[in-house]
């Protein structure tokens, strides 16, 4: 962590040629640093513990331990060590991949299609690192819409009632997929204020990050 603006990125995918493509992409960006690669879930857990990346690009479908389990292990490992949790972006070939939905439920910060435009992937890395916005919020909602259809939505837990009026307004806007900057403009407050409110909302609801908030809103029927 010598330079605070550099985002440490790790790559996990069983296809070496796919990794080398992403490696070139990451290497082309001055604010991104590739700190490690792994070809399967199990070695990605070791890698995460050893090099402590800020953001991990994780393939969901891999031999042995898949991306879902690896996500769970990496986050649990960081918690156990008391270290900061890396942000995990799930890579998938299919837009409606149930595995991607499960990975997000397991704590991943979002998903990106493997054929997404490079600019999109790069901005997704920066977005989840800063925690300022959700990657592709409408696609994420669609994903959960597809895989939770039919299962009844549960009423929000009592913790939801403890949100203040302002916090609830922020909650709704994050749930709609707005970024901190957009919310700040809407609410006539500074971005820092939005960030403070959001972290309080996440704390009250026991949520990890804003994509979890989107899922929470969806599952409790709170999404607009």
């Amino acid at each position, binding site marked *: 962590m010598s330079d605070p603006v550099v985002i440490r990125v790790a790559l996990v995918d*069983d*296809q070496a*040629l*796919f990794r*080398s*493509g*992403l*490696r*070139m*992409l990451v*290497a*082309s*960006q*001055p604010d991104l640093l590739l700190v490690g690669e792994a070809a399967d879930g199990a070695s990605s857990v070791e890698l995460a513990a050893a090099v402590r990346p800020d953001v991990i690009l994780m393939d*969901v*479908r*891999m*031999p042995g331990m*898949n*991306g*879902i389990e690896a996500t769970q292990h990496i986050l649990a490992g960081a918690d156990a060590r008391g270290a900061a949790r890396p942000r995990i972006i799930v890579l998938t*070939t*299919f*837009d*409606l*991949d*149930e*595995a991607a939905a499960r990975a997000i439920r397991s704590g991943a910060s979002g998903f990106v299609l*493997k*054929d997404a*435009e*490079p600019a999109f992937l790069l901005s997704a890395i920066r977005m989840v690192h800063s925690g300022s916005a959700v990657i592709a919020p409408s696609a994420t909602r669609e994903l959960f819409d*597809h895989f939770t259809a039919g299962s009844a939505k549960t009423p929000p837990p009592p913790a939801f009632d403890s949100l203040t009026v302002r916090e609830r307004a922020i909650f709704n806007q994050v749930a709609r997929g707005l970024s901190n900057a957009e919310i700040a403009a809407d609410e006539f407050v500074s971005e820092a204020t939005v960030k403070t409110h959001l972290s309080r909302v996440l704390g009250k609801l026991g949520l990890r990050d804003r994509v979890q908030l989107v899922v929470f809103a969806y599952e409790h029927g709170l999404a607009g």
Partner: protein
Amino acid sequence: MIRALTSRQLGTDIGVAAVLVVVALAYTAQSGYVGFADAGVALGMGVALALRRFSPPLALILAWLVAVLQMLLRQDPGLADLAILPVLYSTAAYGPSILRWLGFASTFVGAALATLYSVTIPALLTYATPSVIYQGLRAGLNGELASVAESTLIVFTGSVAVFILSWVLGVLTRAFSRSEASRAAQQTAESDRLLAEQAVIVEQERNRIARDMHDIVAHSLAVVIAQADGARYLYASSGIHHDRIADPRDGHDLVDESLSTIASTARGALADVRVLLGELRHNEPSGPQPGLSELDDLARQFGSTGLTVELRTSGITAPLGSPRELAVYRIVQEALTNALRHADRSEPVVVALDWGREELWLTVTSSNPVAGGDAIAGSGHGIPGMIERATLAGGVLAAAPRGTLFVVSAQLPVPVAPTGPQPEPNRAVPA
């Protein structure tokens, strides 16, 4: 009223009827003069006989009319009356239920009339003056009257027995042909079902193959996209800018353009593949496509169900390419599934991979589920699917019982390695 008969059936009926008429007339002629009444009765019964299958109700009506006419004309019962028996038979065998029961009633009414006409009335007319009847009734049934009653009873019983026998035979024939017909219908339905099932299996397997292929292609396209984009970004950010290869016409960077084209074309192709895969994809377990290296796991999975699987490899293993590896995996999976379902589980199943220079021989040997039976030849065993797999991988597959064993054997081509370690430079390569 009228049944559809083949010309042969109709011909037979008319022929038999004609014979009866001729024989009856000949018999009558032997004992004397053949009158119009004799001829009429014989002819009428003959026509009734000829009609018995063509129109059972008409035959019954005609037989009754002729019989009544015969009595009115005071004719003795003759050979021609034998036609009544097949007619009764036909009412039971071919008629609708109302005709069947009319036939049944006819046996009793007919027998009663015949007995009265041929035995009782002549006897009474001969012996029974009113005084005889009176005395006979007074003394209980005895004397002449008793003998008349006795012979009446005997003849009636005999006639009913003969008539009813014909009728019952008809009923039996009907029941038999009914069950025959239903068995035939059942067989047709069964073979239709097998055909349909087979078609469904082939269709399902084709879908699965298409899905597998698209999956493989999708992952390759993702690599193409990642490589092209990565190279483009790296190229743009590196120091090669100053001497970039520019289009002389408008100064565009050709490398950048070419890489963009590769990426966007691959993106378009991947989008197409995604559409083709559609909904099929989503319930698949997460994991890459299985290949040869997963055969051990597969054997272990089946082992945990109680099936002993021996995996044997001989020859020099060569790279097969993911579509063919997948084909091998799926064929083995299907063959083991069959063995699990049908074979004797105490016998081990042997999966053998024999590598040749140009082809891979795959053999899965299990105990024969139905020794000597042909049940395996039917569908429901995934064999059409396995054949489809092997064919699409450029190979062949056969699955058949061999004695007490059931053998699935496939031959798949091994691609010639493009970068062989020792290409013989001096040998001319045929074009």
